[in-house]
């Protein structure tokens, strides 16, 4: 993929929730990109802004949230400058999205088939029978057995894994170039998780689409992603190729997520699991947002916000102490 520009490039994105206490930033100055055919993993604890980021790409942030600055370039166009109608053409068309909760993400009162046909018909001018063919084909592509039968069924008649397959079929029914998957397997049990991830990989090989995979499971990132961005309290604190970040994590938060400090001699030493939780947007500390939970925090960390700094080829971390080995190793 070298030499090719990214399919999606987010620059300095800021999404806030309006409140009586002012604008609360849920995503604050995030820059990430995905190349064609590649997978970007986004990890972080609950509440760090992963879902808001992905909904921002779709421009579906619920009220009172709004995007206040930055740009989201998809295929050369800034999504933030598109009209609502143009944006609607992209949603479900060139950009598909699946969600965490397959139980509630499908409408319980419509058949699976009808919901897929709706997605197809929103983007393609097809006859009823042609749309049905496309929908059944989509079900077959996600390896749902007896797709003609499933087509007539309601979501409550399907298992969680089947529903997520239906969601994927729906999101892929118009052959998107980018699939945003917001914790697609979190609600599923382990064996089903693995099946769904395998399916996503397979479909990526078949279609060449890019994937943004949001998760808080590092194992999933290791298995699926090419690049990874670690988010904390609305900001990306470390990013780079999966090998680099996993092999040589530099941000104390990333290290905390791994639950261990890798040492130069190759042995892993256990670190106390990071205590506390992600601060909500209305209670952000000054300086580095991670400093109250960080074992390395110094005065500078408590007063000045660190920005992403390059540490290697495309590997960046936002920590005053990075690279950690230089100071502590």
């Amino acid at each position: 993929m070298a030499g090719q520009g990214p399919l999606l490039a987010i620059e300095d994105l800021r999404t806030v929730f309006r409140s009586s206490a002012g604008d609360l930033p849920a995503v604050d100055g995030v820059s990430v990109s995905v190349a064609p055919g590649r997978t970007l993993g986004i990890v972080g604890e609950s509440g760090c802004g992963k879902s808001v980021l992905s909904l921002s790409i779709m421009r579906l942030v619920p009220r009172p949230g709004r995007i206040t600055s930055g740009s989201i370039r998809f295929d050369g166009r800034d999504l933030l400058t598109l009209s609502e109608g143009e944006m609607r053409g992209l949603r479900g068309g060139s950009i598909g999205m699946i969600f965490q909760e397959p139980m509630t993400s499908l409408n319980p009162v419509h058949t699976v088939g009808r919901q897929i046909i709706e997605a197809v018909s929103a983007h393609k001018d097809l006859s009823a029978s042609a749309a049905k063919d496309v929908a059944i084909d989509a079900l077959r592509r996600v390896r749902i057995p007896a797709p003609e039968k499933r087509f007539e069924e309601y979501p409550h008649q399907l298992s969680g894994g089947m529903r997520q397959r239906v969601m994927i079929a729906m999101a892929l029914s118009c052959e998107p170039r980018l699939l945003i998957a917001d914790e697609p397997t979190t609600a599923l049990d382990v064996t089903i998780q693995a099946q769904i991830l395998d399916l996503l990989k397979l479909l990526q090989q078949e279609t060449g689409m890019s994937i943004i995979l949001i998760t808080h499971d590092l194992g999933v990132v290791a298995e699926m992603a090419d690049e990874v961005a670690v988010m904390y309290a609305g900001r990306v604190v470390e990013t780079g190729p999966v090998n680099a970040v996993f092999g040589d994590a530099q941000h104390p938060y990333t290290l905390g997520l791994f639950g261990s400090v890798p040492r130069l001699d190759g042995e892993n030493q256990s670190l106390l699991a990071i205590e506390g939780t992600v601060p909500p947007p209305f209670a952000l500390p000054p300086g580095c947002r991670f400093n109250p939970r960080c074992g390395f925090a110094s005065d500078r960390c408590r007063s000045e916000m660190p920005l992403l700094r390059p540490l290697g080829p495309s590997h960046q971390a936002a920590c005053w102490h990075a690279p950690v080995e230089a100071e502590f190793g």
Partner: protein
Amino acid sequence: MLAHIARRLLTAIPVMFGVLLIGFVLLQVVPTDPAVVRAGPLATPDVIDAIRKDLGLDQPLWMQFFLYLGRLLRGDLGVSIINNVPVSQELGATIGPTLELMFASLIWAIPLGILLGTVAAYWRGSIFDRAVMAFAVAGVSVPVFFVGLVLIWFVGFKWQLLPFTGRDGPIWTLAGLKAIALPALTLGGVFVGPVARMTRTAVLDVLGADHVRTARAKGLAERLVVLHHALRNALIPVVTLIGLQIGFLLGGAVVTETIFSWPGVGRLAVGAILSSDMPLAQGTIIVLSLGFIVINLIVDVLYAVLDPRVRAS
């Protein structure tokens, strides 16, 4: 589905029995003596006694009740004490106009309420939303008779735009339509607000649901998101809530019929109770409770039609 309906009908039997019993007891409390009423002001005590015996009123109360039940089972509702006309005949003549009035009231009030509620929910917080909610609150707190009297006073009496007493032929004739306009406006009018409010709440709830977000994420036009996903799902609780208002509707019908002299079951019931016409009053109570049960059944069926999860179980 059919089994479901059959089950509901079976459970309606004890309800019906209870209704008959309560109605019977309540009518005993009314201080006038039907035999005296029937006999007229000039009757001698002997005549009254004879009539009392004739009507079975000399029997103990429980006996009277079971005799009444026995006759009911044979389809005999008795004879009106005042008019000496079979109760079934009186009821037969009034059920039609009552159904007509309910139909004419709900046919516009429910769709209008749903429309207002949906639009208010979609643009929640807007001036339109606040206006609809103010109207809904007013609708809940203004009694039916007040709306009726205001309409009669202005539209009927002062401006002489529409008639306001009685029925004037079937609804599909111009005269019939004009005659039903004010009663239907009254009975429906008090219903629009509650329906709008319930719809607004339900639609707001569904608009925040995950599957609505999915619908948007597939690129559906907002019109489809609102109609096929938000409103379509919101109809399930709305139907249930409307079902819970049946008592309110029947009570409203009684009041509306009375103030507009609409020849329906409600007005008949009021007349029968006021004149201690026990068999007739009992008959109207039976019809009104049957109406209650039937509407409940319709709600149940609608519920299953709207929700595939209910249909399955």
